[in-house]
């Protein structure tokens, strides 16, 4: 039993240098050991899902892209795939290949970014500076291919917005070669550098059973030996025509997660080469209707952080009735508390960073806390709460039409 008197409560977040986005971890410490962690989400609710209901499908594409700055293509593709499924659109093969190319380049830039963040969290800033310098190569390539370094806006309903010319292929290959060289160096560094191994090995353990039970996804799950990858299990875009290996690891710790991500980088380079080699000729988009027929679809997508799920319900108008985003971080947050069990405070930043969290993308619910009736609210409830709140203050909201709220 932990001694209550000697327990120190340390607030890591909502504002803390280890966290790039506001999120709260209330950590109870005995000395340097963590006895319990209370996690609280919801500091970054932006109402994107509701926003989607107010806009047309084409506008939503750009809004959904802004769910996350790092995996913007992931969210846009997951959304657009769902809409295309409802509309029964078959997109050209060339468009599928271009989507896959951008997706893999995004994975490269995301994993390199993670490597730098991981280095920073354990006080190894040199790694941060090096990997982010190398990441610039991909960012510049994005600017060249899509016009933007982030939020590439490559997708459109029925295909992609921009073609990639054959003259650009050699340049892409050159950059991939350079990055592969660098990644090999990082793999060697990870395997030989003593302090790195000391700080990562055995830290943040998550057994395979726990990973599956807590619904971990992406590299977090794969580093615990859970062999799941949407790209292979439920292929989308051009993945069914490409050869790649799903990287797993049995280390079940932060070191394993680093190894998986580095291995995935190597797979991504191979995928990019295959895409450029097999890129079919043809149009890059088909014409999409403005109004999407009634229906619903769930789209799965393997984002750099894990499986990203989008649900779209259409009602025959040019605006969706409901959009639901399940960002990969939400699936992985459950496992953080498990990983931190019996850990050190010093390991908290790297353990949290090891799931590659993207908290802003995750926040979907609002919790009212500290009041007389502290509770968690879903969207419907929140709408009712808002209506009640205004009614109590003499505003009659009955004439305001609330979408998606048939009962009212």
């Amino acid at each position, binding site marked *: 039993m932990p001694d209550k008197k000697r327990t*120190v409560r340390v607030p890591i977040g909502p504002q803390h240098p280890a966290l790039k986005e506001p999120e709260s971890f209330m950590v109870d410490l005995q000395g340097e050991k963590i006895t319990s962690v209370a996690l609280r989400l919801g500091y970054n609710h932006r109402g994107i899902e509701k926003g989607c209901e107010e806009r047309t499908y084409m506008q939503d594409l750009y809004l959904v892209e802004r769910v996350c700055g790092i995996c913007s293509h992931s969210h846009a593709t997951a959304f657009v795939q769902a809409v295309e499924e409802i509309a029964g659109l078959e997109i050209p093969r060339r468009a599928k290949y271009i989507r896959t190319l951008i997706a893999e380049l995004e994975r490269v830039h995301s994993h390199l970014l993670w490597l730098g963040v991981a280095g920073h969290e354990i006080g190894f800033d040199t*790694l941060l500076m090096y990997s982010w310098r190398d990441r610039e190569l991909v960012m510049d390539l994005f600017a060249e291919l899509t016009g933007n370094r982030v939020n590439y806006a490559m997708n459109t309903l029925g295909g992609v917005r921009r073609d990639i010319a054959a003259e650009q292929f050699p340049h892409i290959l050159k950059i991939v070669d350079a990055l592969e060289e660098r990644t090999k160096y990082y793999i060697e560094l990870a395997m030989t550098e003593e302090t790195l191994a000391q700080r990562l090995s055995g830290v943040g353990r998550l057994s395979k059973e726990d990973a599956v039970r807590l619904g971990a996804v992406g590299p977090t799950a794969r580093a615990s030996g859970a062999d799941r990858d949407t790209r292979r299990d439920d292929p989308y875009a051009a993945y069914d025509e490409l050869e790649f290996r799903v990287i797993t690891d049995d280390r079940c710790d932060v070191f394993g997660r680093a190894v998986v991500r580095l291995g995935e980088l190597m797979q991504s380079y191979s995928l990019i080469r295959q895409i450029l080699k097999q890129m079919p000729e043809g149009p890059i988009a088909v014409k999409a209707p403005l109004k999407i027929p009634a229906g619903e679809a769930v789209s799965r997508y393997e984002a750099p952080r894990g499986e990203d799920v989008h649900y779209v319900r259409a009602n025959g108008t040019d605006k969706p009735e409901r959009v639901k985003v399940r960002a990969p971080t939400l699936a992985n947050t459950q496992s953080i508390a498990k990983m931190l069990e019996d850990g050190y405070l010093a390991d908290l930043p790297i353990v949290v960073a090891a799931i590659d969290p993207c908290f802003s993308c995750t926040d979907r619910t609002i919790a009212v806390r500290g009041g007389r009736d502290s509770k968690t609210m879903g969207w419907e409830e929140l709408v009712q709460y808002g209506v009640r709140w205004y009614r109590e203050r003499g505003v009659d909201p009955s004439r305001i039409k609330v979408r998606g709220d048939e009962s009212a």
Partner: protein
Amino acid sequence: MTVGSAVLNILVFPGFLFLVAFGLAGEFVDRKLYARLQNRQGPPWYQPLADFLKLLGKENVIPEGADRPTFRLAPVFALAAVVASIFYIPLGSTTSVLPFEGDLIVVLYLLVIPTVAFFLGGWTSRSVFATIGAFRAITQVFAYEIPLFVALLAPALLANTWSISGIAAYYAGHPWLWLVNLLGFGVALVSLLGKLEKVPFDTPEAETEIVAGSFIEYSGRRLAFFRLAIDCEAIVGASLVAAVFLPFGLGLTPVLGILVYVAKVLLILGILALLRTLFARLRIDQMVHFCWSVVAPIAFLQILINLVVRELI
């Protein structure tokens, strides 16, 4: 010593002004080198001074419930102790300003005071981050201080004196004998990293874990003086290591002697910058374990070597 020259010694050389100027320059060298090794541009030469002046103009905040005198005095004590210790370290020659038998012990003692000041400053801040940082700082002292003492004891054994000036004079008289102490030199460098709280031993102020550790509640003038104390401590620590472990080029003219001394200190700062580029931050338990199971035995080995060498010559 006349009053005039004493005042000159305290305020100008090798005292306050010289130490502050050298400390800020040393911080620049460290930051620039660190940046260049990381493939970054790094700051301009006046950045440490600009940072210092900017902090002087910022608001001073004392947290509620803090022990005000301790909170106020901690930076002053840290800086004063560091400046005081420079008078016992020979710089460009074989004698310091105030040499006496046993000044090695006094300098080591004075150089612990900044760490104690960090601890007290953090402890009285009443912030949970500062408290953890303060605890880590004091834990770390027990890890690196003993190896440092032992490493400095070894050359003193060989020279048969407890005075830094005496040690320098002995090795100046026995050229090449300093090569015997290379192991101790390594131990001293590692301990210096711990003393200055630099990566891989920067656990007391680990930014990503406890924000800034002891310094979290400090702002304005007091933070400026804490930072200045650390800068000066780097110079004094490097000077001490240079005087004991790199005792060559001491019989030159004063100006040339000072230049050689500056070069030695910069070399040590350069090695420290290189070391902190290479490693990740260790956890406090790993740090203590590393110091006791690797660094301390090497320091004791140095003692053994020096005892044997003393019998031989």
